[in-house]
């Protein structure tokens, strides 16, 4: 901490290169459909880029480790928020199945899309009716 770290220009250029490369990767993977992994891949690449910026451009790698701890802690809190919220949205309908997926499937936003069941598989409206889950559909 006491001595000031001076990063060589080479490192900066290498980091910039990596960032450009990862941007290209982001664009490239957007042409493929990985289903539910789309978001995970996109966020993964973005997280990698953000970490590189924080570690090298913002000097967290050479700074007092307390700063890194603070930074990681903030990510940890974000992690807590997202994971625990998923305990709600991922497990709805455990007791009353009618509340499992009503919001998204009935949203006007989704009207243009084919009707799907909870796993994203297309269903035709008549079979859904037989299960009594489709009363509100218009």
């Amino acid at each position: 901490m006491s001595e000031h770290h001076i990063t060589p220009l080479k490192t900066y250029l290498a980091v910039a290169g990596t960032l450009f490369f990862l941007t290209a990767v982001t664009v490239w993977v957007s042409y493929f459909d990985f289903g539910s992994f789309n978001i995970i891949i996109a966020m993964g690449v973005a997280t990698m880029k953000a970490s590189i910026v924080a570690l090298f451009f913002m000097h967290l790698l050479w700074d007092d480790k307390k700063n890194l701890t603070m930074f990681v802690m903030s990510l940890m809190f974000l992690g807590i928020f997202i994971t625990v919220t998923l305990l709600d949205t991922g497990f709805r309908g455990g007791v009353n199945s009618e509340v499992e997926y009503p919001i998204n499937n009935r949203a006007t936003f989704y009207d243009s899309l084919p009707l799907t069941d909870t796993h994203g598989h297309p269903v035709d409206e008549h079979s859904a009716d037989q299960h009594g889950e489709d009363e509100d559909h218009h």
Partner: protein
Amino acid sequence: MAENQKQNYLTHPKGIMSWLLTLDHKRIGLMYLFGGIIFFFLGGVLALGMRLELAAPGNDFVSNDTYNNMYTLHGAIMIFLFIIPAIPGALGNILLPLMLGAKDVAFPRLNLASFYIYTIGALFVMYTIISGGVDTGWTFYTPYSTTSTSNVIPMTMGIFVIGFSSILTGLNFIATIHKMRIPGLTWYKLPLFVWALYGTSLVQITATPVIAITMVLLILERLLGIGIFDPALGGDPVLYQHFFWFYSHPAVYIMILPAFGIISEIIPVHSRKKVWGYKFIAFSTLSIAFIGFLVWGHHMFTSGQSVFSQIVFSFITYFVGIPTGVKIFSWMLTMYKGQVSFTPPMLYALSFLFLFTIGGLTGIFLGAVALDIHLHDTYFVVAHFHYVMQGGTIIAFLGGLHHWWPKSMGTMYNQTVASICCLGVFLGFNGTFFPQFLLGLRGMPRRYATYDQQFAELHNYSSFWSGILGLSIFISIMNLLWSLRKNNKLDPGTNPWGGMTLEWTHTTSPPHPHNFEEEPVLEHGPYDYDKVIVEPTFKK
């Protein structure tokens, strides 16, 4: 030396600009106190107005719409403009550097900036009130808050802005506690109020950004219809509640942890006894701050969240009871065989123990899913959080104000009047809120301007005692202010309670503009009543 002793931060330097542009943490603390008391008064008047309306069934004084505005503003003002900023902003600012032996906080300019940010946020709230109010309840739940025609945007903007004031104060305090302690003042020699402020500050800087995000999303949803919370656009209204309570549950600990700190100071000093379980109290503060982040879903048991997360949240909620119990028992053991004197601050601390314990235990009721589904949105919840927030935080705040008043203002209030007011607050408080537990158990819903005849007797009783409560608080504040009259100054060396922390032993009352004439040398721990004798001194 004599000339130097006459100099104190209240009179030196002089002039209005020296206050408005001050970098002195004590003056900034007093400005926070002044702002906080104004909003406390405003919120209190709204509360008494509601109790007046509820004294009898039917719409006697105000319309339903006005009533909706009143409870929303009462909640929002009390929480965002009084309780959250008041203790860290006022007492924390005045005391933290004094307790550390420092000249000021780590970033004095940032400290002044955070006060002005708070003022700007308060102006937004005032604008909301003047332009017709807001009727969503202080929680701004969607979908009502995205469709209500009242002034949701200025109010939420105000809260957004005030959040930054909280973050900056928290950041400042953390830096101050890490970097500004005098040599020898190690972590385990810190006064417990400092530990409490440290825990509070950690929560402030980690949780407050989330309320800022939530308010921005709400404003964007209203203005642009971006569809985060609106199911018609693929959003999820329950997500709003996750966002809101991810901040607002930890915010409950932003409100109560400083109060714990105050009680941890008052009890050993007025019992003349070393605090029992110092490390237990210190670490229970940090564990409450951490567990507080994992329990937000217990506000949402009837929101339609999954049964699985209800069980998880209910289970984790019980863990909060452990560190809280550790504190209560430590305080009681501190008093055990101590030389307890029933001074006004101690009376407030004792009231706190009773009221907070009731508030905490009824929280355990509400943490149980099955019971909460029955009690949710009834007066049981209203009574519970008032026992915690008013019976806990505000009582501790009043206690702290009475404890450090001679230190910060250099005058002593009339102690008999203060003690009688404390009794009035205690009785008035229980008279107001205990009947509300019964009302809630019988099914009286919260936020209604009128009710069935069967609830009339308990409501009437509650309204009557709320008058006593309001009057007692008003007189106790007036009693403090009355002590500021001329020719009522204490001797600068006064230590009326015999406190052992640096602010009592090493500086004058009121303190020198630079806190200490020379850097204090630590001679003993904060509560070494078993090793050193510090006699209370009280002279005019």
